[in-house]
């Protein structure tokens, strides 16, 4: 089977991730929680070490060679990330943040305060992560606009019947490229086109999508995109907002402080140029170096190979779950694997997700259980929590087999 071949080929890469050998030396370890955070290849860890051991100084303004070196490393990461997602102006269009959540808060406050008034409408979806809901709600408390939500159907697909009518009212559309619970891949290129026809600005949440699919912001048509490093082999503590230069230009500054100004007087300040205008204080420099190395690694593997691998594993997992657990398991989200990424939320009959995760952990299988920071979505599904398994390039069929074995054991334990 071609699928298994490719999967095996990719999972060769597993040895590049030291955590697997280190943990497996003492206990079984099946890491199926990459949608929460991925593991890191040695090259990312080593790059950060090298940075701290050879090149660390604060960036910008420093005239001495070491500071120039650190600045060069940091700015090179910016350009690399810009190229990685197809930005037309990588030097100016990437703002580094601490995570995707800060990136979304930045665009909500920076752009929202410019575009929105009490009469405005913001269109979101019912499958958004809290990171693309709560910032809008905070701004709403300050400005008083209306938020509307696109619902989703039983398959976990957005219902777009009255899309144009809603876009007609809206100033901004906020939508996730891929749901972190349902795995749903949203038709973002089409949504952006329709949104632009109504003059609506599109804010994409790329936290789940960008780590798993070749991303070209020009093809997607979004105007802004939030990204996070730790889900794509990079360190914790770094994320980014990409936005078209003309959007960044009109956005108000958000965090105030050093680096983001052109002048400060006692009676006011003048903001600096993009993207620095949005990067107040000492940035995550070592983390940017690590992200740069992670991008190299992902490019070396190939994003299309990763997407194929995810899909094959998802297909295999859905089949195994159905075959071996039949009606004892319910898988949420699209049943058609071409409409979803490698994230599987499920319910094991009459076993609480916390208990599922705890029993699985006894088998060394790591899955997440909870509301996955998507409470409105959970309410819509009619559950309080789900268990969720998610795949990345270092996973293979053994992980899936261990998952299904452990699920059978959990079922047994609670029904035996």
């Amino acid at each position: 089977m071609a699928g298994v071949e490719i999967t095996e080929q990719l999972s060769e890469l597993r040895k590049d991730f030291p955590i697997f050998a280190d943990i497996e030396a003492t206990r079984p370890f099946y890491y199926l929680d990459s949608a929460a955070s991925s593991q890191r290849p040695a090259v990312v860890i080593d790059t950060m070490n090298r940075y701290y051991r050879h090149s660390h100084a604060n960036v910008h303004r420093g005239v001495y060679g070491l500071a120039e070196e650190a600045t060069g490393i940091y700015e090179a990461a910016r350009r690399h990330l810009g190229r990685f997602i197809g930005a037309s102006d990588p030097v100016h269009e990437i703002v580094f943040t601490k995570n995707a959540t800060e990136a979304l808060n930045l665009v909500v406050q920076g752009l929202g305060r410019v575009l929105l008034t009490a009469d405005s409408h913001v269109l979101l979806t019912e499958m958004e992560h809290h990171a693309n809901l709560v910032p809008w709600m905070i701004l709403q408390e300050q400005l008083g606009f209306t938020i509307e939500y696109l619902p989703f159907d039983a398959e976990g697909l957005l219902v777009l019947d009255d899309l144009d009518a809603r876009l007609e009212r809206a100033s901004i559309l906020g939508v996730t490229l891929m749901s972190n619970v349902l795995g749903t891949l949203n038709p973002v290129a089409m949504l952006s086109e329709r949104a632009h026809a109504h003059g609506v600005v599109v804010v994409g949440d790329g936290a789940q999508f960008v780590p798993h699919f070749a991303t070209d912001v020009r093809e997607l048509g979004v105007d802004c995109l939030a990204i996070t490093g730790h889900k794509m082999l990079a360190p914790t503590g770094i994320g980014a907002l990409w936005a078209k230069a003309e959007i960044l230009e009109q956005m108000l500054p958000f965090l105030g402080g050093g680096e983001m100004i052109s002048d400060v007087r006692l009676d006011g300040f003048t903001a600096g140029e993009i993207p620095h205008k949005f990067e107040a204080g000492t940035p995550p420099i070592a983390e940017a170096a690590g992200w740069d190395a992670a991008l190299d690694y992902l490019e070396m593997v190939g994003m299309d190979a990763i997407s194929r691998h995810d899909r094959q594993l998802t297909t295999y997992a859905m089949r195994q779950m159905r075959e071996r657990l039949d009606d004892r398991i319910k898988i949420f989200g699209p049943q058609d694997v071409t409409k979803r990424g490698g994230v599987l939320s499920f319910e094991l009959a009459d076993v609480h997700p916390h208990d599922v995760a705890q029993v699985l952990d006894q088998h060394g299988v790591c899955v997440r259980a909870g509301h996955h920071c998507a409470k409105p979505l959970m309410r819509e599904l009619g559950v309080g929590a789900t268990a969720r398994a998610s795949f990345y390039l270092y996973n293979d069929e053994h992980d899936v087999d261990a998952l299904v074995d452990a699920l059978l054991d959990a079922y047994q334990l609670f029904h035996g």
Partner: protein
Amino acid sequence: MNDLDDLYREIILDHYKNPRNQGVLEGPTVHAEEGFNPLCGDEVKVYVQVEDGVVHDIKITGQGCSISRSSASLMSQAVKGQSLDEVKATVSRFKRMIAVEETEDEPEPVDLRVIGELAALQGVVKFPVRIKCATLAWNTLMLALDEESHSV
């Protein structure tokens, strides 16, 4: 997993599958309170009937994971028939047994012979995330009793 763990697991599963004191209470001396676990949306409702300063009866409804349901069931057994002061002591012993997130210090050692079957939940200390599951019913009981003391 060693034998003790197995024993504990049996107690938890037993109380999860056959929760004691399930149901509702009604009447003028009954106080009821609802609790809610923000982590997973689990809910519990505790009914207590206090007479002459003693927990005369207690009943519980709601849904949750094995830890939260067995904890509620074990709690109902432990406090039924206790005076309000004894209940307070039981709650505090239980919380000390599992409290690790809330204080800076190591949990105080608790005499397992005193705490009885509740000791089955001791393993939760190792899983701080689930402490909220284990304490849900207990916090809800305390709220119900607070209400009772105010109404006197």
